[in-house]
Each structure stands twice: as structure tokens, then as C-alpha cells.
């Protein structure tokens, strides 16, 4: 996975639940493009048309609360979102995103407006708002999550390692 990239920000608010990321009625499919077609539809019906591949989603607190559906981060990833930056995430969403290889960063004090150019450095854990010339540090992640993301997700991680190694936490 590329560890440094830039993208245009799409900024939304607090408490965006997984039902609004992808409604329950669309989750019953293995065709991931179907998911992407309806991503964030109940939050912003125009999101799909505004999104360019590589854009970054910026949100407030508790992003991804609610259901455990992994279809939520999958829909974002397949639609072309390169990373989600939020003040903090709901627990299951955060884990799911890492497991499927969608970078997620917790930045408690990020300031950005929609359209700002942001740069993300996963290895350094740094988010820069290039438009506003500001720089932020993301909260540290456990090593196991860094390893999983580094290998492109949990499927690849377990294919390589076979199981979880307590000493790699």
C-alpha cells in the first residue's frame, strides 16, 4: 500500500452511522461495485458525483457508529475514497477499515474545508492540510494494525503469518 498520497477533502460532521454510509437494503451483495454506487447516499445524495478517485473523507467524532457491516468501509474504498480522517471512529468500523485495507486516521484537532488539498503520510502518522498550510499528528495505532494495513488487509496478513502472534502486538 502506498504510504504517502494527497487528495481532495470532503468534509462531513459527527456521528455518521453505518446505515448512512451504506443502507441495510444495499448490503446483501458480493458485488462490491453495487455498494460503491450507493455510498453515503442517505447523508449526501450528491456525494458520488462529487467524488474523484483518491479523495479523502474528513469527518467529526464517532464516524462509523452502529452496525458491524464491513460493507461500509468497503463501499468507501471501492468508490475511490483513499482514506478517512476523523476526530475519532466507532470501534468496529475502525477495525473493519484496517482489515479491508482502507487507511483510517484519528486526528482530534484537524481543520479542513471541503475542497482542501490534504496530504497523508501513513508511516509518519501525519496529515497535512496543504491548502491551509497546517499539519496534524494522528493518534498512534497498535503495531498489529500497522502491520495489517501495511500488508493490504487482514486476508493478506493471515495468508502470510498463519495466525496472530502475541509478540507482534
Amino acid at each position, binding site marked *: 500500500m502506498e504510504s504517502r498520497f494527497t487528495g481532495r477533502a470532503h468534509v462531513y460532521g459527527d*456521528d455518521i*452511522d453505518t*446505515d*448512512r454510509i451504506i*443502507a*441495510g*437494503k444495499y*448490503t*446483501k*451483495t*458480493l458485488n462490491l461495485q453495487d455498494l460503491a454506487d450507493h455510498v453515503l447516499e*442517505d447523508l449526501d445524495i450528491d456525494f458520488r458525483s462529487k467524488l474523484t478517485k483518491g479523495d479523502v473523507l474528513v469527518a467529526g*467524532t*464517532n464516524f462509523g*457508529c*452502529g*452496525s*458491524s*457491516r*464491513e*460493507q461500509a468501509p*468497503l463501499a468507501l474504498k471501492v468508490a475511490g475514497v483513499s482514506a478517512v480522517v476523523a476526530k*475519532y471512529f*466507532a*470501534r*468496529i468500523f475502525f*477495525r*473493519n477499515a484496517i*482489515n*479491508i485495507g482502507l487507511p483510517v486516521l484519528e486526528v482530534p484537532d484537524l481543520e479542513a474545508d471541503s475542497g482542501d488539498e490534504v496530504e497523508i503520510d501513513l508511516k509518519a502518522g501525519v496529515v497535512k492540510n496543504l491548502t491551509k498550510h497546517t499539519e496534524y499528528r494522528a493518534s498512534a495505532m*497498535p503495531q*498489529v494494525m500497522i502491520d495489517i494495513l501495511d500488508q493490504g*488487509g*487482514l*486476508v493478506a496478513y*493471515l*495468508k502470510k503469518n*498463519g*495466525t*496472530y*502472534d*502475541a509478540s507482534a*502486538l
Partner: protein
Amino acid sequence: MAGMTVAEKILSRHAGRPVAADELTVIDVDAAMMSDTTAPLAIKAFREMGGTKPWNPERTFLVIDHASPAPNERIARLHDIMREFSRETGAVLYDVGEGICHQLMIEDDRVRPGEAFFGADSHTCTYGALGAFATGVGSTDLAAVMLTGKTWLKVPRTIRLEITGRIRPGVEAKDLALAMVGKLGFAGATYQAVEICGEALVPMSLDERMTIANLGIEMGAKAALVHPEGLELPYDFDASAISPDPDASYVRELTIDGAALRPQISKPPRPDATVDIDELIGTKVDVAFIGTCVNGRLRDLHAAARILEGKRVAPGVRLMVSAASQKVFLAAAKDGTLATLTAAGATFLPSGCGPCVGTHLGVPGDGEVVVSTANRNFRGRMGNPEALVYLASPSVVAAAAVAGEIVDPADLED
């Protein structure tokens, strides 16, 4: 060493060494469960990981409940993937109509106190009702459990929530659960476990405790553990293994005055937008729904039947009822509850998630107001983003169905 919380006790046993809050650890998992929303992706990920048979097929459960029976050919194919996986690997399948996953795991004795249970469904926290550390994960995490029999996690800090006093007649476990979510807030327990205890809980049945633990995830909790005082199970269990040490340390301690509690309602679109029923009296209602893993059990249907006995739902109101399992449905058929509710105008839906998650069946119209016994009222949750969903107890929902508007069930009785 300081005393342990319930989460620390259970996770220490599964880590094979003492672990405390904030520690990262790998644990052995006792059981894994997935639904038709999450199983197809989990099976795909499991195969991609190189898996052929789950680590323990007898402790791997597949439940077809979210869109059940299949509403279209696309979903029928997903159900078939689950049936085929069960045939091939020996994993246990619950097919169409048997009931909602969480109800089945407890009703069918698939989970016991002190176990570490992982489910690919966020309301897996329900099993905290009997003192299991049970938590929801996504499909790929569940696939990893099937592959390895293990998972990694951070031992959560714990919030202690005490509900003092006995609740008054007319107030139900659901009111307590909604009050709890209102008090702690939507993200109030994110990354943390919640221990729920107090005098109000002691007389409660396992069914009622399930209603309470179920809403743990509506506060973001990793696990919701109800203390075992008063818990009755049909087998012996070690209560000390699911009780905290007296000197356990908590990040927060909160109390709710159970004796003062009025029936509660959560307003759309947030489960934590909880108010006393009094604020909403007179709100016009189009749809009333009784069911789900929160309130689809026999005592919930009984509560509704007490109110609907000999009455008819108000003109223009649709009342839908779904028993949480076939066993619940059968019991309600045998004791006459089904007849009472049907005579009052209720439409029975198959045992399963039904309208709860908007996948099929009972989708409300634009601008319609729904009162539901479910746990979530997010925008679009029931399949239409233009509908408004209020969450309440079975008695409040039944009373609204009769009156055509939100009323205090106590006012209907005289």
C-alpha cells in the same frame, strides 16, 4: 495486583495470563456467529485466507435472519452460499424462519457465562445478559476467528452503571435500556466495556437482561456485562467468574434512579435522543412494530397483548409483529397471545429481523411515523430515509397502535 473487572476476568482466562485494561492481547475465542448480512463476505474472506474448515465447526454458527425468507434471487444466492458452507464444513446453520441470531444463540444454549463470543453483528453484546464477553466484529475479523480460533484485542476499560431502586409498574427493561443510552450517549462507552448492576436488575429475567445488554452497542460499548445477582439459568454457573472484584477499578461510575423512571422514547434519528414519554404524548403514529432482538420475546408479546386484548388498532395504523424465534411464536400460539394480537389487527411477519433493518418487509412510506421496539432509528434504518422512527417499549408501541398516537399505556387501562 488490583482487583479485576468482569471484562478483565473473562479476558484473562482466555488470554492464558492475567491482563488488565489497556493491554493488547491475543485470546482464544469460544464461538463465532454470523448472519446473512455478514456471512457471505466472511466465507469469501475465510477462503481467501486459505481456510477450508473452521477451527471448531460445532461452535461456528450461521443464521439466515436479516432478509429471511429471501426477497429476491440475489439474496437467495447469498443464502445458498451459507447452506453450502454449512454442508461442507459442519458449521451449524439456522435456516429461514428459525429466528433472530441473538435470540437463537441464547435460547438454544449456544453461549454460556464467562465465554468469549464473537459475532459478525453489532448486537452480539446481548449475551452480556448472562455474563459472556460478547462483541460484534466485521466479516473479515470473523473469518480470522474461523481460521485461527483466536483474535487480538485491547482489554477495555470499564464503566460501571448502577440502576438504583425498583422500577415502577408500567416501566419495562426497555425503558431502562433507553434511559441508559440517553445518559451515556451514543459514543459514551466507545472502546469500553459497561458493567450494569443495581437493585432494579435483580428481579429481572434473562429476557429482560437481554433487552438491556442489547443496547450496549448504542453507547459504542465493546461489551455490556450485566452482573449476575438474581440471574437464573437452567444450569449451574460460577457467579464469581462473572462478577467484578470489590476493588476493581472503573473509568467512570454512574447511577440512574430506577424508581423515578418514566417510560422512555428515543426520537429519530438517534438512539440516544431519549426523553420521557410525557414530552411526546399526542404524536400521531402510522406504523407500530413489535419485534427484533431487543423486544421480540414472549414476555414482550404478552405486554402487548395485555394492552391490545379486546381492542382494535386505530383506523389507519398498521401494526406489525414478529416473534424473535419460532419457539417464541409457537409459545405465543399455544397460549392464545397470537389470537389476541391478530384479533386486534396485528399482521405477523416471519421470525427474523423483519422491518428492523430495511432489507425487506414493512418499509414505511415518506413522512410516516413509526413507533418500534427496535434499537436503532437512524435515518433510512427501516428502508426509507423519509420516515421517522421512534424507539419504545412493547407496551408503549401497543398503546400507540390502539390510540393512533403516542399515549402513556397507563392511561389506556382506565
